[in-house]
């Protein structure tokens, strides 16, 4: 059940991704419309993070291609914002909340130029949007998990992008914060931004997303929430890995080289 759209904001064409020699995503082919809040759902190890890393060009695809705003990634990077998993950085790094959020302005500044007054105002405004104005000067190691997550989202807001890719932004976040952030993302989608979120909780996914991408090493479904979040497709997504696919993966792993690489 894959819904393709006209004039997609993001087009993924037959994408296969492997780590070393371990294929983790098979032939993903989908397109997304503008202004939607999109959830990427699937069990652990389904390739959810891999998919957005591949979109961001952080992992080279083994085959296939991706076009964003009908252009190759490198031409539109300043219009895309990526929020990595919270655990991917060392929160003991000596930096204040403002320092981290200011990083969101680096992309548009480019190399050499230093952030100035305008960038600082933008960062402060972004912090206000996520309700963290009271923490501007706080050392990042002193924040709770949910606060760290909000700092990351503020950094993304400071990027002023049109497409947002967020990797598990609700991991370790309490219910109240989750709802507040979802509300914020929804408002962003309403103003024409596209927000793609890797998410693991099906229950809240039902409530908040407009569109769902369901993965389990391969693309199970992609389409409007009401069409794809059916019992049958959910069972397909969460009902364990395909036996044959696992066997093929093992076969590829045993080769001395990566046979999928073109």
């Amino acid at each position, binding site marked *: 059940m894959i819904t393709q759209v006209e004039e997609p904001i993001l087009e993924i064409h037959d994408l296969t991704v492997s780590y070393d020699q371990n294929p983790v995503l098979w032939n993903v082919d989908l397109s997304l419309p503008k202004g939607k809040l999109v959830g990427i759902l699937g069990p652990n190890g389904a390739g959810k993070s891999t998919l957005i890393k591949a979109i961001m060009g952080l992992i080279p695809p083994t085959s296939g291609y991706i076009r964003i705003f009908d252009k190759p990634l490198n031409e539109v990077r300043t219009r895309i914002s990526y929020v990595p998993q919270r655990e991917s950085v060392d929160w003991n790094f000596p*930096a204040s909340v403002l320092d981290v959020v200011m990083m969101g302005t680096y992309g548009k500044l480019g190399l050499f130029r230093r*952030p100035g007054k305008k960038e600082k105002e933008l960062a402060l405004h972004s912090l206000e949007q996520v309700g963290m104005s009271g923490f501007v000067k706080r050392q990042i190691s002193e924040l709770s998990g949910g606060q760290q997550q909000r700092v990351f989202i503020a950094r993304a807001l400071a990027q002023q992008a049109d497409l947002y890719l967020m990797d598990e932004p609700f991991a370790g976040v309490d219910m109240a914060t989750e709802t507040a952030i979802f509300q914020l993302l929804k408002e962003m989608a309403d103003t024409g931004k596209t927000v793609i979120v890797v998410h693991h909780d099906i229950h809240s996914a039902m409530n908040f997303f407009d569109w769902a991408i369901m993965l389990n090493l391969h693309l199970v479904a992609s389409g409007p929430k009401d069409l794809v979040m059916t019992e049958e497709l959910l069972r397909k997504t969460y009902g364990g890995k395909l036996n044959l696919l696992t066997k093929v993966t093992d076969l590829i792993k045993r080769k001395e080289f990566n046979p999928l690489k073109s």
Partner: protein
Amino acid sequence: MEDFVYFFTFQDPSILWVVLGITLLGIGSAYVGTFSFLDKKALLGDAISHAVLPGICLGFILAGEKNPVYIVTGAFVSGGIATFLSTWLKRNTKLSEDAIIATILSVFFGIGIVMLTALQKSGNPEIAGLNTFIFGNAIGISEKDLMLYGGLALFIILVLTFFLKEFRLMVFDREFGDSIGFPMKSISFSFNVLMILAVVIGIQAIGVVLMAALLITPGSAARFWTDRLGTLLILAALFSVISGVMGTYISFVLPQMPTGPWVVVFLSLIALISFLFSPKSGMLFRFFARKKYLRKTHREHLLKALYKALEEGRKSLPIEEIYELYPYHKPQTQSGIKDLKQNNYINQNQEFIELSQSGISEAMRIVRLHRLWELYLNESMNIAPDHVHDSAEQLEHLLTPELEALLEKRLNYPALDPHQETIPRDRP
């Protein structure tokens, strides 16, 4: 003392030069070192510093004398090969990083020592100067050499200052840097070049064996004092410069003393002081903070004991009975009673202790927190009533007024705890 005044008044221009050189070197290496320490690559600096030795010897062989340009180039190339090899091995083999670093360090240093020994047997009279590269000798550096080392140090400082934003991104969140299209590979590469340069500029003053200490120790020591990157860099540079100048001074007073080991002695001293005395993360601070906390908990336990007696209808307790409650902690109990008296929480009437009005209110607060927490564990976390006491015993000293208000609201201002005891509140 005369030496001290002579040295630090810089009457001798050559001393001024050396101190200036050491200062630049200290700032440069501390600067680079702090970043590599934050990037958890401290060991790489050690490997590089040992790995430059074959290059130094090769530079000497090619020049036939102690020509600084040849030696610096040789050292840089050999350090570069070591760095490249370690990254390459990491990417293309399954070896772990520590195994790779240890191997590279020992292999390169071994080759270097073999070359050095062979050179010593060759009978070249210039060779004597080459030994100083092992442990360093800051005093013996000529002005011409200083220009080269100082210039390189200045270059490192400028590049790092200019690209602070990029290097900060590299250490904190490299993937994000990639995502916004920054050339993170080139930035990493430039950083490695700076790291090798930082080692190279120290080889003559500090020596290859101990140069890693000048890279890593200042940043690690400074980390105890601050949570800000800017302050961290300045402090690290300061520590490094102080140790560098002191080490040089020792080499000046006792000419047979190598500089490197003395620099490390001073650095270690600074690191030890930081470890013990820095506020918040220092050992001493933590020791006293804990002690203070234990004192507070004991005080609060005394209040609780008096309050429980009050609940049973006994307005005061004999002091001996209180001591018996904590049989092995009589001194603590005595100081606790003294503290409570000072705060006017209790009154002593001969051998009897009784809670004052403010004491009752304070005791109620602790008992209330204890019982509220017990109830919370029981109601919200489904823990049986006979399993909630120990946790409450700890949390009663920790819960803040905000959390207390939250608990009250959450539990809807309950009257009884899971053991059917009254949760005490001040009558408004």
